């Protein structure tokens, strides 16, 4: 447990560092990420360019810094939107029960049956590439899983006596959802949110790599990996740097999720089902 705690703090520090770098990209980045300097392309580390430059002579470190802004923020925002959509539908489904629940769950089943990567690609193909399409694609392809878990949690919580007690005292549906249901399902959901942010970062990177997400001049880890595939033999860091950032970010968020899950299990076993 002691070791896990240290890992958790480290992982949290890494996550916060990525967030900070993303927010303060304009202040931190030594170069304009799109400043081309062909004379200096694929150069090794130097005083001016700490990590060297890419095939167009752009500063690798600055591109990584701006990349963490787009990758991490899209992931957080997309997960937030998914959470909002999935949680609302799950709450409604679980709280109403009966035929509305059965109807909603049938739709959820259909959405969950489609492989999510194929789904994202299909939606992006339909809407065309871009940030907005990417967000829509991620929300449409992953709200169902969220809503199912929220709904199952609601079903479990609504059977508790304190919910019946509140109803017997005359509490309405909104009061009960706000005061009794949400606080009791939010903590277990935290684990799910954390894992989801990790996988969304990967989806964003994968789609940008395929040219379906953000487009070329933007700095994004996925685009950087795509750019690197022709040049990594001449200067390996162009591939290594964005890949390492991606791995580090996903690793840290998964460690955080793992630690939260352990803590919750310790608490009351509420995270068993996640």
């Amino acid at each position, binding site marked *: 447990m002691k070791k896990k705690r240290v890992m958790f703090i480290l992982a949290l520090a890494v996550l916060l560092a990525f967030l900070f770098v993303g927010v303060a990209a304009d202040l931190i980045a030594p170069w304009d990420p799109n400043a081309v300097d062909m004379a200096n392309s694929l150069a090794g580390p130097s005083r001016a360019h700490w990590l060297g430059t890419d095939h167009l002579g752009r500063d690798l470190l600055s591109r990584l810094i701006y990349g963490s802004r787009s990758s991490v923020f899209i992931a957080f925002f997309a997960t937030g939107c998914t959470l909002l959509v999935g949680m609302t539908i799950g709450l409604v489904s679980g709280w109403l029960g009966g035929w509305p629940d059965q109807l909603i769950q049938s739709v959820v089943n259909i959405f969950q049956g489609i492989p999510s990567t194929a789904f994202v690609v299909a939606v992006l193909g339909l809407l065309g590439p871009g940030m907005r399409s990417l967000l829509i694609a991620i929300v449409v392809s992953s709200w169902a899983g969220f809503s199912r878990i929220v709904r199952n949690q609601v079903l479990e919580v609504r059977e508790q006596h304190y919910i019946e007690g*509140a109803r017997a*005292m*005359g*509490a309405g549906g909104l009061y009960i959802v706000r005061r009794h249901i949400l606080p*009791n399902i939010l903590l277990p959901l935290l684990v799910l949110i954390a894992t989801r942010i990790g996988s969304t970062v990967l989806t964003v990177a994968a789609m940008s790599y395929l040219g379906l997400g953000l487009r070329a001049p933007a700095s994004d880890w996925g685009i950087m990996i795509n750019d690197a595939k022709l040049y990594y033999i001449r200067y390996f860091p162009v591939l290594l740097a964005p890949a390492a950032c991606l791995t580090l970010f996903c690793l840290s968020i998964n460690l955080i999720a793992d630690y939260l899950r352990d803590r919750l299990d310790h608490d*009351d076993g509420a995270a068993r089902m996640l």
Partner: protein
Amino acid sequence: MALIEMKHLTKVFRSGRLGSRAHTAVDDVSLTIGPGETYGLMGESGCGKSTLGRMLTCLLPATSGQVLYDGRDLLRVGKRELHPYRRRVQMLFQHPDTSLNPRMTVLDSLREPFLLHDLPGRAHMDDVIREHIRAYGIQPELLERRASQVSGGQTQRIVLARIMLLQPEFIVLDEPTSMLDVSVQAQIMALLRDIQERTGVSYLLISHDLDLIRRSSHRIGIMRDGKLLEQGETGAVLDSPTHPYTRSLINSFAYMRD
């Protein structure tokens, strides 16, 4: 004069596709409870006694029948009209470990009646609560604790204190002590009796424990498979039971005591 009167109360649960399977949990039950009276409802688990309690407190809609309170059928009044009755009819549940929201402090739980009803002393509810809980044997330190850190017996006291903030006239006690140690059981039953003497509240005491019911009820009813087989004064029913099931129940409890 009856305080609450059930007439031909029936509950059918439907399950399966389009409700193809039906299960009658409560079958044509009629009974009345007077002011200040304890009515003991006795039966094995699964006989429908808890379902009956939930219908009385309007937690579960009835399939047919009436619940008359103040001459009005509670099952047929609108949500808004029902609200004032919510104060007057309350329920104490079987499992103390889920009776309070585990993420809230005891004080927060005790504040809920004030948030939901226009009770006297709402403006300074914390003072009212601190004064109120003394009569229920709740130490003031407990108020700051989370519900998950409170023992079963204490939880029942807290829930009971919260119910009494609403000044109800009728409380359904759904196996209120079955999850508690014997010594704590006796304390809670004594507290319930004390409350009844002080306020004249009526109880519907639901239990499978014949001894508990015998000691605390003025009148009793015996339930099996959703049907009320027999009812009357406690002494009369237990001394000269008319239904063979009642007789076998009494015998099995007598056997357990020997």
